[in-house]
């Protein structure tokens, strides 16, 4: 069991060594790097709910909003430190997750998707009407606290906790709920309990991600946490492969860099104007990606057990023999 811990320590040492040089990084690349870290936290967290427990949530950005606003508010109004603010944001989001999860997780698939979607929208509308935190004008945070070290430490801890959780008895519980809820109940497993645990944990990490985001961008706005943001996170999980943490990390990296690449492509004069218009709208490509993936590779882009993985393993076996 100490292998994940070794990896964690190695990774933390690596980012600690890199962190002092963060000012030397071009601000554009720095922005992308931090966004990748935040997206990893969001994707790996949601994967716990969608991938391992098989519950579809369309309101993950709502929890991110709770975390972002809480951590920003305690910093701006109470002057609390960054780490404490992040913790408050995470715990607040977890509480929100509990409040939403307990009634709605008794529902199944399609209904849960609609209820979580509704919840995400309700959070956004509430924030828009809350004048204390700026309402629809948004909220500014005076100091940039989020750095390379903080973001990737949080990302590494998220991955670490999720990996440990999945390999524990809780993980077995999540998987049985996903694979066959009736059989799980027949075996005496409290399915609602496991669903709520997965949901609350994911909400906590989304809150942390929101806090990091708020303290990085220094300006948050309710519109930034709408339905499309939730879809972004879902696409990361689906592309990476449901229940495949390394895949989700790769997908988070890929889907953060991809829009930047597409932006360059959309400015390329040689392409016909219509095609450039389509490329400019990221959501057209994302939705097509979702449909095509579900039709051809529902297990995600980076899953094991695919054709190429099998060929690679066959090659390795041949090499060994």
């Amino acid at each position, binding site marked *: 069991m100490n292998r994940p811990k070794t990896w964690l320590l190695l990774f933390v040492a690596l980012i600690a060594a890199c962190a002092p040089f963060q000012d030397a990084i071009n601000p554009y690349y720095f922005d992308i790097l931090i966004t990748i870290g935040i997206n990893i936290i969001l994707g790996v967290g949601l994967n716990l709910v969608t991938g391992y427990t*098989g519950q*579809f949530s*369309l309101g993950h950005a709502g929890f991110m909003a709770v975390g972002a606003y809480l951590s920003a508010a305690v910093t701006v109004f109470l002057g609390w430190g960054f780490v404490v603010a992040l913790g408050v944001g995470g715990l607040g989001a977890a509480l929100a997750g509990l409040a939403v999860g307990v*009634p*709605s997780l008794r*529902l199944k*698939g*399609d*209904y849960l*998707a*609609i*209820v979580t*979607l*509704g919840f995400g929208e*309700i959070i956004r509308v509430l924030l828009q009407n809350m004048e204390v935190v700026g309402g629809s004008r948004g909220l500014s945070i005076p100091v940039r606290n989020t750095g390379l070290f903080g973001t990737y430490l949080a990302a590494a801890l998220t991955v670490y906790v999720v990996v440990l959780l999945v390999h524990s008895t809780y993980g077995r519980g999540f998987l049985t709920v996903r694979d066959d809820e*009736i*059989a799980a109940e027949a075996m005496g497993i409290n399915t609602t309990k496991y669903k709520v645990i997965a949901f609350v944990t994911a909400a906590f990490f989304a809150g942390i991600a929101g806090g990091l985001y708020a303290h990085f961008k220094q300006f948050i706005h309710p519109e930034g946490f709408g339905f499309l943001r939730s*879809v972004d996170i*879902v696409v990361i999980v*689906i592309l990476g492969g*449901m229940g495949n943490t390394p895949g989700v990390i790769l997908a988070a990296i890929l889907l953060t860099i991809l829009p930047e690449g597409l932006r360059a492509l959309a400015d390329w004069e040689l392409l016909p104007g219509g095609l450039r*218009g*389509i490329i400019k*709208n990221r*959501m*057209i490509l*994302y*939705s*097509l*990606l*979702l*449909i095509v993936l*579900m*039709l051809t590779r*529902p297990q995600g882009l980076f899953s094991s057990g695919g054709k190429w993985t099998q060929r690679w393993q066959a090659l390795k076996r041949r090499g060994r023999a």
Partner: protein
Amino acid sequence: MTEFLQQLINGLSLGSIYALIALGYTMVYGVLKFINFAHGDVYMVGAFAGLYLAPWVWKVIPQGSDPSRFSWSTAGGALAVLLLSMAVCAMLGVVIERLVYRPLRERPRLTVLITAIGVSIFLENFGQYLFGADPQLFPEILPDRVIDGLGDLTVSVNQVVVFVVTLALLAALSFIVLKTKIGTAMRALSYNPVAASLMGINNDVVIAFTFGLGSALAAAAALLNAINYPAYSIDPLMGILPGIKAFVAAVLGGIGNLPGAVVGGLILGVLETLVVGYVSPMYRDAIAFAVLIAILLFKPNGLLGRAEKEKV
């Protein structure tokens, strides 16, 4: 009392539009046991089909010169726009089913759900690319006029038209479902798809037909909504909210149950209008979610639905 009656009339005309959309959800759920998330966006496509088709139709059937008087050619033109938009959406529904949902029929429900959301996001954003993101004013295909002699009540001609057309569509639908061969096949399929196909029913054809029928009703709802409200403007994201509300209406009536969808739609429409009129317009869109959460907690099978046991 007059005010209440007025709210009731407005609510019923809103509710009949929800009912038409809800029928599409419930029919597809009946044959495939899944919720077609893209249905609200088919409604949006119906509205845009009407917007672009109207000038073409007017070239063939010119509108009457005096909008304040009834003219057969105006009414005929409006009917033609309605039927053509319904045909466009029916084709769209069949194409979506053929390309996307049919290959997924035996897959886990989560896969189908994610795909349906993908189709929905695609229609919204491709619509923004194709039609532009800004709202566009819908042309007046049927000039409106208030009916005289009702005292304090204001009922417009078009509200009556909406009722009449909705009733006609419902009658046509129940004729198709109850009396025709394909309707019988639809009902057989919703009871038991395997047994239905053993009896020689071609499930693919029936499912495609169901999608076409539901999508045509969504287009009709879009056009009736445009007729109902003067200076109606449409945009590619307009389908999201009516889609969600109609889904709530379908769940309220009991999903999979056709009369239930109509009852649910009417109740939701009246409830929404009453809340806007007597409580606060701010809660207009929240009411649907409140109703949904209440039904799911207290009567998950809806008002007219039957409890379905999951077989292991």
